[in-house]
């Protein structure tokens, strides 16, 4: 136990904590700005960490990723523009709350859920990193295919009133995800000779276009209602709309616990990412609450809690396979590999033997970061919530500008802006005709992984009998089939009920 003292001393030293705080604050700000994400921020910050000592460098970068995942809820709730793709459900459930004058309440819950999910996942990381990583190595393409198929079916079930429309949207998302160079031979698919889409349509401009810009377009079309709405957004002034009440805490306790668990599991499994975590958790809460589409119509604090706890839980959990076997479970973990290697450290099983003190120091710093996140988030929100009091006529052009900036940065320049505009038009019509873009985005995000792991499965499995050695895959495949059957049966019953009226 005594050998832990120097670890704590190093991790809690003012200089180290300063870097953690700087990282969390920077991350929170970057996360709140739509279009800028932890990926870009971390990647750009890595060369700066070259000159720091290893502990401060890693703690700083991890701080950025934590802060950013939490900060993305701010713009999601206030502006219906997710600061990062994983906060899309937060926007769907949180923005209506803001419009009902409950912005501060939603923001607070988002922050608390984020911190709790983050803390939970960090503790899991610390306790189980080594043990769990060995299991994660057994998750191969076969299991991944089944898990992704199940995820897609599950999320298709989220799609509002019409399953058919949801499936159409989902399949359209998969179709759009096929645009680009095919992974094995490099042959261009659906690229129409445009080099900029060789790596596929960039996600951020697509998401920003479909969600935020189309919303802007619709709102601008309803200009005469703007003045009424701006009063709503300013908040009702009643204390109960600004704080989270005890009964609301009770309602949100379960989604937070469930979200933290889902996020942690999703984070450990390589390849899924924070968006899958937040969508799954959101969907589970939506179903469990029984309110369904009402979540998006009137907003739902539980939905915000579910999404934010899950997406923040994914981040520390995705370091499990990274620390233990050197395989990153997420984009952010992959970028972190560079940070480690710059310091001359190889993430992997040897990490715990050779750099034990460093890893323990990182753990302590991560716990400190969770608490610092709470403080920074609490005070940062007041600043951001004030933005909402400004009339939308002033806010919207700024939002549009930020969206364009995000699309420009993440989408490869003016091409990204073009993509964003295209999808804002598509999103506009999708909204008008009630096509779910949750399923579209999920299809778009999961599509490439699903195709790749399916093709890998076909290459790895030479005859059917081999499938029996993949029990996890069989379980998920069966669940997916059951899901489809149940959803279609339900759909048929709905149609029959409507026909009988």
């Amino acid at each position, binding site marked *: 136990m005594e050998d832990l003292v120097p670890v704590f001393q190093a991790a809690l030293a003012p200089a180290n904590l300063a870097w953690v705080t700087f990282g969390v604050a920077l991350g929170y700000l970057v996360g709140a700005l739509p279009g800028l994400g932890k990926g870009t921020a971390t990647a750009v910050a890595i060369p700066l960490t070259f000159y720091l000592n290893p502990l401060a460098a890693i703690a700083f970068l991890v701080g950025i990723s934590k802060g950013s995942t939490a900060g993305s809820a701010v713009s999601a709730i206030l502006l219906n523009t997710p600061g990062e793709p994983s906060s899309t459900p937060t926007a769907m459930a949180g923005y209506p709350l803001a419009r009902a004058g409950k912005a501060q309440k939603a923001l607070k819950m988002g922050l608390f859920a984020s911190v709790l999910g983050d803390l939970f996942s960090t503790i899991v990381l610390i306790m189980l990193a080594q043990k769990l990583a060995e299991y994660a190595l057994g998750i191969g393409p076969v299991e991944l295919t089944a898990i992704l198929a199940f995820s897609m079916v599950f999320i298709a079930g989220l799609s509002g009133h019409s399953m058919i429309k949801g499936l159409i949207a989902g399949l359209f998302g998969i179709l759009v995800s096929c645009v680009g160079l095919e992974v*094995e031979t490099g042959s261009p698919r659906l690229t129409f000779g445009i080099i900029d889409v*060789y790596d596929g349509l960039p996600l951020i401009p697509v998401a920003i276009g479909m969600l935020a810009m189309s919303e802007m377009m619709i709102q601008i079309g309803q200009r005469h209602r703007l003045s009424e709405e701006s009063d709503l957004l300013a908040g009702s002034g009643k204390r109960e709309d600004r704080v989270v009440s005890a009964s609301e805490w009770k309602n949100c306790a379960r989604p937070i616990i469930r979200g933290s668990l889902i996020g942690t599991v999703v984070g450990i499994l390589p390849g899924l990412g924070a968006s899958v975590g937040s969508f799954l958790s959101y969907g589970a809460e939506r179903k469990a609450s029984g309110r369904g589409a009402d979540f998006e119509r009137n907003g739902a604090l539980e939905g915000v809690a579910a999404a934010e706890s899950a997406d923040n839980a994914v981040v520390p959990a995705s370091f499990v396979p990274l620390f233990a076997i050197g*395989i990153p479970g997420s984009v952010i973990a992959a970028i972190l590999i560079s940070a480690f*290697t710059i310091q001359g450290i190889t993430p992997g099983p040897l990490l715990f033997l050779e750099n034990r003190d460093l890893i323990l120091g990182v753990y302590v710093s991560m716990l400190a970061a969770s608490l610092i996140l709470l403080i920074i988030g609490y005070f940062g929100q007041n600043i951001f919530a004030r933005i909402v009091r400004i009339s939308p006529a002033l806010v919207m052009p700024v939002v549009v500008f930020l969206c364009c900036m995000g699309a420009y940065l993440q989408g490869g320049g003016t091409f990204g802006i073009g993509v964003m505009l295209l999808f804002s038009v598509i999103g506009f019509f999708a909204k008008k005709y009630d096509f779910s873009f949750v399923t579209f985005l999920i299809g778009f995000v999961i599509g490439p992984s699903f195709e790749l792991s399916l093709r890998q499965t076909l290459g790895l499995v030479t005859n059917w009998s081999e499938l029996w050695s993949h029990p996890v895959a069989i379980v998920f495949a069966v669940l997916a089939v059951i899901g489809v059957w149940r959803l279609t049966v339900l759909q048929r019953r709905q149609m029959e009920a409507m026909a009988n009226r």
Partner: protein
Amino acid sequence: MKRLFKTAATTAAIVAAAAVGFSQSALAGDWPSKPVTMLIGYKAGGGTDTKGRVLAKILTRELGQQVNVINRPGGGQAVALESFKNTEPNGDVFFFGSVTGMTFNPQINSALKFDVDDYVYAGGLTEFQVSMVAPADRPFDDIAGMVKFAKEKGRIKYASLSPSAKIIMQTIAKKSGINVDYIPTKGGRGMIQLILSGKVDFAFSGGIQSRYPGKVKTIAATSSSRLANYPNTQTLIEAGFDGLAIDAPTVVAFPVGIDPAIVKKMEAALKVASTDPAMIKISEAIKMPIKYMTAEQATTLASTSKTDIAKTLKAINYQKK
């Protein structure tokens, strides 16, 4: 009137020539006289990008002007190279990346409108340790052994992280008469995952195996000469596969039309960078060794690499997409 016109035209011509002459000589002598841009064709955070940013810091010191890094990822450097080809050859922008972007990609994708000859090479800095790898527990240590293993088993499972990886194995398979199951992966991470878990027997790697000592063995080098990290590992050419090599050094390039004096200055600065302690530190850290090449060596390599690749593609009847 005619005389006036003639005088005006002559004056204009002289002024124009002087301006061009001035700008050329001003550039050549004083380059760089303002901040320059390093263009990288990959996302921020990758191996090339990490090295590039360290190089940019060193060049800022050596050249006396700020070197800013811009990432234009897409299509394996294709997006960056296509836009870079048409930039003004005045030294404001230079490209840093793997030469395979110019030598290999245009030969498999007919939509790409650039080629090796569209660029002037100022030199090379590092080299991807491109090689064929296998899980440590497989019962073969060289290509001959791998072929034997494949024939005994009937089929061999191969993880293919890029079109070039697949093409290399297709060539080996065709010449040796073995059956291969190609399992596509998304980049080196996916490949190393399959190798570490033992799900595949063989794979192409850009050098990432150095992070997993004892778990992965390097079977052959796919470069034209032996790799710095694996001096005892034979190349595919040495193993009998004539002309089968895809060299992947990282180079600095300018668009065609650049002033040779600028190229010389960059070449010299690269030489200094190759012995700089910061560069050495990071090379050891990410295990991508420094391999300095002069402008001439880089140009020759680019050209011969292109020809070798063309021959290989022909040998497997590759259909250009």
